[in-house]
């Protein structure tokens, strides 16, 4: 690749920010200048209390997942397949070697800190979709010794596969188990499965960490994340900093949960129940 991947990510992010307001592709971004959004972009001390959403950055991308819709389990499979195909995610036989960006688990494992043995059966049996939370104060980015994982001004916690040294400090630091390491060459199972690869997204090499990237590469092209495109009724994506965005509207109306809030990481993934 001629362009440094990190530069590409940055450029892509900026062009997405600059381009989308004008295009009005969807109600992601408030019109506003990019520089202003850098404010609050780095590790979060000094955040005042009170109305954080309004005082913070102009763009904070987030996802709300309507878990009730997932009773129809075919949607879970559809979403996972969309992500797998978009990002050439390999399937390993062993759980130990697994690489996954979005997957399902039950309430008890997703919210272990709010364990409730009297939980409604309906909720207990729901498949919750797990993914990187794109935390507002991400511990993974804080610990990375080379800034291979870093928070962008729009709130996406990105991963630079070409800079990562594979120390796996970020995996120890992520309290959500969102990160996967390529223990072996991911191209081996991709080849073995004979999968049709997405040429628009690079396959990774062994020895680097990866995770959900909120489809930063698709956003740069003005598209929605792959999971949103697959099931727009389940996955609601948008700008948390914009009080009029679709995601803010749905969060005002529905009860939502976020994972391990007590850790102060401020996850950007919401579960609507």
């Amino acid at each position, binding site marked *: 690749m001629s362009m440094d991947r990190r530069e590409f990510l940055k450029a892509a992010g900026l062009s997405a920010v600059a381009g989308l307001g004008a295009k009005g592709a969807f109600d992601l971004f408030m019109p506003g200048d990019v520089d202003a959004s850098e404010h609050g972009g780095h590790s979060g001390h000094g955040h005042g209390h009170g109305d954080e959403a309004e005082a913070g950055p102009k763009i904070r991308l987030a996802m709300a997942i309507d878990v009730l819709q997932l009773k129809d389990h075919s949607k879970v499979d559809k979403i996972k397949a969309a992500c797998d195909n978009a990002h050439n995610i390999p399937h390993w036989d062993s759980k*130990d070697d697994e690489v996954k960006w979005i997957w399902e688990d039950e309430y008890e494992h997703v919210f272990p800190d709010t*364990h409730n043995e009297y939980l409604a059966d309906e909720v207990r049996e729901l498949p919750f979709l797990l993914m990187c939370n794109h935390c507002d104060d991400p511990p993974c980015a*804080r610990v990375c*010794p080379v*800034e291979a994982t870093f928070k962008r001004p729009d709130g996406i916690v990105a991963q630079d596969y070409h800079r990562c*040294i594979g120390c796996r*400090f970020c*995996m120890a630091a992520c309290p959500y188990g969102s990160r996967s390491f*390529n223990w*072996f060459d991911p191209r081996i199972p991709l080849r073995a499965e004979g999968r049709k690869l997405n040429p628009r997204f690079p396959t990774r090499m062994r020895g680097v960490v990866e995770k959900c990237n909120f489809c930063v590469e698709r956003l740069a092209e003005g598209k929605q994340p792959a999971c949103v495109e697959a099931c727009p009724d389940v996955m609601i994506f948008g700008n948390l900093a914009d009080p009029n965005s679709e995601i803010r509207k749905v969060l005002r109306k529905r009860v939502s949960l976020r994972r391990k809030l007590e850790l102060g990481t401020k996850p950007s993934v919401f579960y609507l129940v």
Partner: protein
Amino acid sequence: MIERALKGSPKYWGWVIFLLAIISVGFLCYLYQLKNGLGITGMSRDISWGVYIAQFTYFVGVAAGAVMLVIPKYLHHYQKYAKIVVFGEFIAIAAVTMCLLFIVVDIGQPMRMLNVLLHPTPHSMLFYDMIVLNGYLAINIIVGYNTLLADRKGLPCPGWVKPFIYLSIPWAISIHTVTAFLYAGVPGRHLWLTAVMAPRFLASAFAAGPSLLIMLLLFVQKVSKFKVDPEAIQSVAKTVCYAMIVNMFLMFMEFFTAYYSHIPGHIAPLEYLFFGLHGHDSLVGFMRFSMVAGFLGIFVLLVPALRRSNKWLVLGVASVFLATLIDKGVGLVIGGFIPNPFETITEYSATFPEIMIAISIWAVGALVLTVLYKVALSVREEQQIA
């Protein structure tokens, strides 16, 4: 001076060749790992650090332990340590070398190691760890080599070395403090998120490093004409004993906080390590052995009659060394990953190539130590004859 390492008995050369043989087997295993990826180890998505990082952590402590001789000698002018302090510094050199190797074998893209320098990242504790470890290595090489050189010529230690000696004291503390911060600063790993992590690291380091030194000094007396003042060894043994008491005390603090508060997240990893959790108990035997060995070591070193007998003394310091090795060099890292963020359990067991690689790094450490000790001993023997 270094050339003295090249003159040795057949036994010496036999030992060196033995170490080289182990190192080459380990090196082959490492090539195998390089070719196939870290998947050949027992590590997994859930247990993403294993024996490499655990051993790294332990040997940072062993390296820091040298300061337990430097402080009495240079701050309190305790002259009984004058002849042995360099042996402590040489342990530090060997141990830091091992630490650096453990990092190299652990990372997924070793060719990109230099990224840590190209993209210095002051908000990462690993960045500081790199600085302090390499600094500590350099300081100990400078101090160890120059003090020994001066000794050989019968001169006092040159003035310009003094600042490095004093610097080595806070620096030794910093290497293990920063290493503790790697763990103590991450949210969501209950076993690690404790303010006594750094103090406990230091206490166990000040027990482990000097106990290794005692074993080596006793051995070295057997194979050379160098005689160590028994009082000096007794003093080091007392240091080991007190440090180990502090270590066990802090461990008791961890138990109290977890079990008295009844907070499930805090109890779970301790439960896993010492009693087994939901039927998973692969480390229970080791951890209990470590606990028993720790108490045994303290007891032996605390009773003067036992401590003064060399046989008991070796048993005491060996127990302390093993106890801390298992506690910090295995349990601490693995226990931090259990249970995982979903409160389920994946266990870990190292694979054969992984263990071979770790053993060969031990062999590298032993080789570095052998060469350095050979040099130091030949200087000391000369002095004794003179």
